[in-house]
């Protein structure tokens, strides 16, 4: 009971209506024993950071299939830094062209995941990033 739960915010920033991937990932993380806050579609980067603060999450997972990731993700990082939330680990999934991945990692994204990613890999990486150890 007193085992510390990993808290994750799964958010869909921007005007992108593709929510299947976000829901699949949210459920997989839930089934791995995590507490997943799901906020629905059309979140601004400000909303994402604010929810992450109020909910004191360990991880933010951004699902972006619209192509707007290079605008949205850096903005989320800016606000997180301004709020003193640098400790939050950020994951990004969706349709992200290969050439954008290094730039996202550079600003601090822990991992980027495209179509066909196995949810088991996502779970392992989230655990690793938070607890520092792979799945037991």
């Amino acid at each position: 009971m007193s085992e510390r739960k990993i808290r994750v915010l799964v958010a869909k920033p921007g005007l992108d209506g593709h929510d299947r991937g976000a829901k699949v990932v949210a459920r997989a993380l839930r089934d791995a024993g995590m507490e997943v806050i799901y906020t629905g579609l059309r979140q601004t980067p400000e909303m994402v950071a604010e929810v992450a603060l109020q909910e004191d999450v360990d991880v933010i997972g951004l699902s972006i299939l619209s192509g707007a990731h290079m605008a949205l993700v850096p903005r989320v990082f800016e606000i997180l830094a301004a709020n003193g939330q640098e400790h939050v680990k950020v994951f990004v999934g969706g349709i992200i062209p290969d050439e954008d991945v290094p730039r996202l990692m550079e600003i601090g994204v822990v991992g980027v995941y495209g179509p066909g990613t196995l949810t088991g890999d996502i779970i392992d990486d989230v655990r690793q990033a938070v607890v520092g150890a792979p799945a037991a």
Partner: protein
Amino acid sequence: MSLATSVLAGERLAMARLLSQIENDEPGGWETLGELFPHTGQAHLVGVTGAPGTGKSSLVNRLAHYYRNPPAGEPQRKIAVVAVDPSSPFTGGAILGDRVRMRDLSGDPGVFIRSMAARGSLGGLAPTTSSMVQVFDAAGFEIILIETVGAGQAEVDIARLAHTTLVVEAPGLGDEIQAIKAGILEIADILVVNKADRPGVENTERALRSMLELGHPTRRVVNHHGVVESIDINSAEKDFESLWIPPILRTVATKGDGLPDLVRAIADHLEHLETTGERHDRDRTRLQSELEQLIQGNLVSRWRKEVPDSKYQEILESLIARQMSPHQAAEILMNGGPTA
């Protein structure tokens, strides 16, 4: 600056941290709550319960929005929301989705929303919900809206925690009478028929009204030394003038219809609690029951530490072999184990 000072100064990051420490049962969190506790007791605690999907979160969104943007002449209030969702009994994980309906509140520094998983608790709240509410109370939030798990059992826990409990019903949940749980009259201070834009509102409302009228004029649940009971109004010494009859109100949470009446009923109920002295009684009952639960929990864990597992198993085996009765087994174990 200590965490308590930061919370009292309204620092949101500090508040979020403290809530996590408490939720995770960290000693530092309890220490800080101890420092904050003298500042509690100010907020109006409003519970929102009802079957899954009746519109609890949508209603909380509207209520908070109203309190933040009141019509001219009404005061603006600081609002906290605690929304509880179920944990999976198999994995312990949870999807906390109530915020999907609360996006109108985003960006307002006078609102703080926190989602919680029930973490194995069955009464519609999480084990630490009442402590989290105390943090918000101390931090100066004036109205705290508490959304329960839409579990469908008698949600006694919320009635014990909140000053004012809203029970939300909606038409179209199948057989109307079936959908309305018998325990509701005992916990509802206000009955809300939400989704009043849907067909069948009249039926739902009629079913509630006839239950209200048929129902014994029992008063709400109280807690005596850990036992929950409801007091019969006739045996209570208070006179009939002080009887609160739960109003039945229609709302359309998605549009905001019916909100002014609901807000007024919530304020009227608080006034009723204050003029009858019941607010004080409820606070007393709640704190006493919290104290007793803590003592029970502590006694059990202290006792577990005193009795070695091997001795426990030994007595358990004797019990199963029917060499002693459960009472005898308990007596031996309570006295320190077999050789004591």
